[in-house]
């Protein structure tokens, strides 16, 4: 079997004495889409933030592209990596947030070229061309000069996807990318994500859009109370759940 792009092993995350993640393990292979579903507070966001190293694990490990994240094993102990090394690892992932988090003082285009120019040191002209291509891909070429406050929620989220892609990540993390959007705007964002999946991008998506999960996901994971309760193919987990908790959650979401 091939090495997974992402391997999470016995991940534990504490906030004070509260266990937000309790022994979570999973694999995502290159080109796969994994959808994370679960009730509020079940630890989905925390898991994504650990993979992107916005927070540190308290126990266990996460390997991305064969490399242990955030730490180095040496002399039987774990040593924390330097900020520069963490940044190098973080650049392999792109993150899309629930509330977009575009930089409000920069135009759509400036948002997309900020990382390539400032962090990766690419030439502005070259980064501009690449950014316009990305904006074209998310259907917002003509909004390049608009500030986030002049864009609809769906347009902002598509710019945010372009911004994450601008760093050429191997893995894309989406944290409820459509849950802050009007129902009519959800479709345009999901369409961009489907296209990305079709092009072979590896993605971990936290979502309550079960139709999207069924159509696009290779694996669905149901979390509750910081644990994985059920994981498998979308038809299994969403269509014929084995666990009572999964069934209760699904019937609540489907209404």
């Amino acid at each position, binding site marked *: 079997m091939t090495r997974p792009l992402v391997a999470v092993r016995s991940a534990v995350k504490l906030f004070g004495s509260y266990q937000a993640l309790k022994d979570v393990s999973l694999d995502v292979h290159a080109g796969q889409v994994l959808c994370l579903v679960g009730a509020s507070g079940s630890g989905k966001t925390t898991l994504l933030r650990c993979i*992107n190293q*916005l927070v540190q694990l308290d126990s266990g490990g996460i390997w991305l592209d064969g490399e242990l994240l955030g730490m180095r094993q040496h002399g039987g102990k774990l040593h924390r990596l330097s*900020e*520069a090394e963490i*940044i190098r690892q*973080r*650049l392999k*992932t*792109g*993150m899309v*947030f629930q*509330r977009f*988090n*575009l*930089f*409000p*003082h*920069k*135009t759509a285009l400036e948002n997309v070229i*900020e*990382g390539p120019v*400032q*962090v*990766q040191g690419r030439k502005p002209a070259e980064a501009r061309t690449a950014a316009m291509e990305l904006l074209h891909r998310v259907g917002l070429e003509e909004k390049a000069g608009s*500030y*986030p*406050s002049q864009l609809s929620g769906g347009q902002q989220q598509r710019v945010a996807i372009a*911004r*994450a892609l*601008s*760093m050429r990540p191997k893995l894309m993390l989406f944290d409820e990318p459509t849950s802050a959007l009007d129902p009519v705007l959800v479709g345009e964002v999901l369409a961009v994500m489907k296209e990305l999946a079709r092009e072979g991008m590896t993605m971990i998506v936290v979502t309550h859009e079960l139709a999207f999960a069924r159509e696009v996901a290779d694996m669905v994971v149901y979390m509750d109370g910081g644990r994985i309760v059920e994981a498998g193919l979308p038809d299994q987990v969403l269509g014929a759940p084995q666990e009572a908790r999964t069934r209760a959650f699904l019937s609540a979401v489907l209404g």
Partner: protein
Amino acid sequence: MSAFPGMAEGFPDLSGMPAARRAHWGRWLSALLILLVLLAIGRAFARGQIEWAYVARFLTVPVIVDGVVNTIVMSVLAMALGIVLGVLVAVMRLSPNPVLTAVAVGYTWLFRGTPLILQLLLWFNLALVFPTIGIPGLWSGKAVDIMTPLVAALLGLGINQGAYTSEVVRSGLLSVDAGQYEAAQAIGMGHMRALRRIILPQAMRVVLPPIGNEFISLVKATSLASVIQYPEVLHAAENIYYANSRVIELLIVAGLWYLLVVSILTPLQMLLERHFSRGAARVRR
């Protein structure tokens, strides 16, 4: 027009009816009262023991104009020092490093907790504590030669200003959504780069109005430097009235200059605010 089904009767048609002008009696009355009071005050000053000819004459004498220039130079230099220190200390205060946080808290506590005039006097009289100052092995000099009125005033005003500015900057940093920092990290920015490129520019929008306030206070606080012989405009005015006893006239001269300098600052601030409000959805214009 498509009709709403089953509308109730008895509501008259108001379309096309003109709106009546409101008579703002209260406003007229209060404006009149204020005008009367101002006239009375103006009359009192015109008839009082003030030689307006002296005011006009001393307004532009070289000593006073030099004083104004010195006031402006000191205000700009001290504010520049204050902003540099303020940003630095605000960033230290919010850093995860507890040593830096403690230094920042201590600095603000010390320089906000003692009177500015006392700080000015201390800097000016530093020679009493340290006869020679310098960097060991590199350079040193006699404190009396180094602590000129200009240097002492700059250090006293700038360092004090930094303590106040740091709190203004800190409130600006806190006003930026935490998601902005995470988004900056997510595209690979380190702590300092995220602050410089993403957080500080957004904080500026919030920080500028109170900084403008601080700057205006500072312009007037430079007058305190007259106690350590810094030749700013109030000091110049004092020197003249010690000689000719035209106290009120020269105080009015100084006052008019302060008003003029402060009046010029307001439009400058508006220009800066416009620059830093790029992309912001406006509440009101």
